[in-house]
């Protein structure tokens, strides 16, 4: 299971968490408990 960066779209908290493509788990912000968690992108795509 690899560790990746997540960003909470509710409170803006950025954290590292586990990620497994085969075993999807419910993403929850450790700070505000929101489920609006986005996988942080290394390089944002150009418009």
């Amino acid at each position, binding site marked *: 299971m690899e560790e990746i960066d997540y960003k909470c*779209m*509710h409170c*803006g908290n950025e954290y590292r968490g586990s990620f497994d493509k085969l075993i*999807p*788990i*419910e*993403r929850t912000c450790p700070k505000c408990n*929101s*489920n*609006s*968690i*986005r*996988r942080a*992108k290394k390089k*944002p*795509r*150009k*418009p």
Partner: protein
Amino acid sequence: MMDVGRHSKINLLTYSEIENIGGYIGNFQVTVRKKARYVDEKECNACAECEKVCPVVAADEFQEGFSLRKAIYMPFPQAVPSVYILDDKDCLGHNPIACGKCAEVCEKNCIDFDMKDEIITLNVGAIITATGMDVYDPTEMNEYGYTQYENVVTSMEFERLISAGGPTEGHFIRPTDRETPKRIAFIQCVGSRSNSPIGNPYCSNICCMNTIKDSLLLMDHYPGIEITVFYIDIRAFGKGFEDLYQRSKQAGVRYIRGLPGEIFENSKTKNLSMLVEDTVANTVTDFEFDMVVLSVGVIPRRDSDTIQRLLTLSTTTDGFFMESHPKLKPVDAPTGGVFLAGCAESPKDVKDSVTQASAAAARAQILLNAGKISVQAITSQVLTDLCTGCQVCVKVCPFHAITGGDAKLKIPVEIVEAACQGCGTCAAECNFDALLMRHFEDKQIISQIDAITSENPSEKVVVFACNWCSYGGADLAGLSRMQYPTSQRVIKTMCSGRVDSKFVLHAFEKGAPILLVSGCHYADCHYIDANRWTVKRVDKLWDKLERLGIRPERLQLEWISAAEGQKWANTMKDLEKMRAQVTQEEIEYTMKVLKEDREKSEARKKKKAEMKESVKEIPIDVIA
């Protein structure tokens, strides 16, 4: 089991595995591999002559490795059918034949070394999943010394040691010196109710009563034996269980609330010592025992993922199969025509397993006797003119209710209405609007968005709520008179998986400042795993909004269960705060950008369609 084996209407397939399951409720096609047992089932009368001459010995799995069996053996004394089986991994004479002693002594010529696996196809109307459970392996828990110290055994191994049919014929002895132990400790919750990564967080339900039963059995057979039970809580709920607990206390079993930190072995006596804090008496005591029994918990079957995949079942976070509804459909699986019984669904004792199995059998009987089923009107419909046969919908359907489709041959997909449960994920994922979700059509939902945003859209929060959980959460918040802002406008869908990207973009284009997509928690999704597609879609939408220069934070995602009225109310308060921060300029920019993006996309689609049309218009003879 004997009755089952003899029943004229029950076809019992032992030593067999399910290879594939196709079809749907009322019309399942099950492919079974009946493995070669190398002994003729019909002829073998279990005379045991073959076993006597077999020169190979292996650990007996049924006796937990405490005794040996031969390569040709009876799996356990009460096995049905009462027929021998030849383990081809251990047998010397299978391929090439080097031994063959069993075949020589078998008077009925039952041994067939050339027997092959048989593939059987069954057509059945209903399936009951009763795949049972496995036992937690405490090897990784170094503190209890299991596998390091011989006198530390699991409750399963203990069962074999005290069983009349066990390796010692019921004479209870400890493994190191073959003497009956005088002081025995039972340690409860081994691998259960643990936050450790090597344990399980849930209560295994049966271990407390199993220990109480074992302690009474020992007290009865060996008067004077000292038994100590170390526990967190004794959970003796159920008819007569508390009485049994009190009886064991009266019989002299000592119960100490506290678990040992570590077990040490005396290398000479092989006795086991441990330091335990009694949290009731508030004392720390050093104990010594002759034998320790680890009361291990139960876990889902290690190979349950195969049957889960074949039957499109979902599991709860602890890995057991999830029922369709915990209160109203406790034995129904989410897939129509599939029922659950026993520990496949959750850890339970014999009585509960029999109760559930009876209910599952009755549910299956109702279905089969009716001979027909009523399906809900909320199902998908394929618009064959628009379908390109790309099969995206086939991939996303949690119930495998969409079949066929070929993009190259332009063959549209087909919906199996009996299997479709109406989540709408297919309609949301279709790029060609070729799937129509009855009662939750695109135009119906778009009309709701238009109605919400027709007046003062900047003052409203558009909320998509799934029928089963989030909408229930909103209901509970209302019924409980919880106070929250009135700016939210709810659009109900059967599942959050139905929320199409275009609904979200349309709402923003119409001036919605904040939008929420809400659904069931992961483990509670009523459509197996349809809400996983919601997450993927929202992830893509966040990317798109950011690409267009729109703050992605304006789209929120929350899992709210029907019991989480408070979470609903709190979420609405948070959304209202976020809504107040969205400026009119931001909304206007969003509307402009999304309108341009949509027009561009429509122009592209139109051009593509025109190109297709022009290709069609060229007569064949001109090309020739």
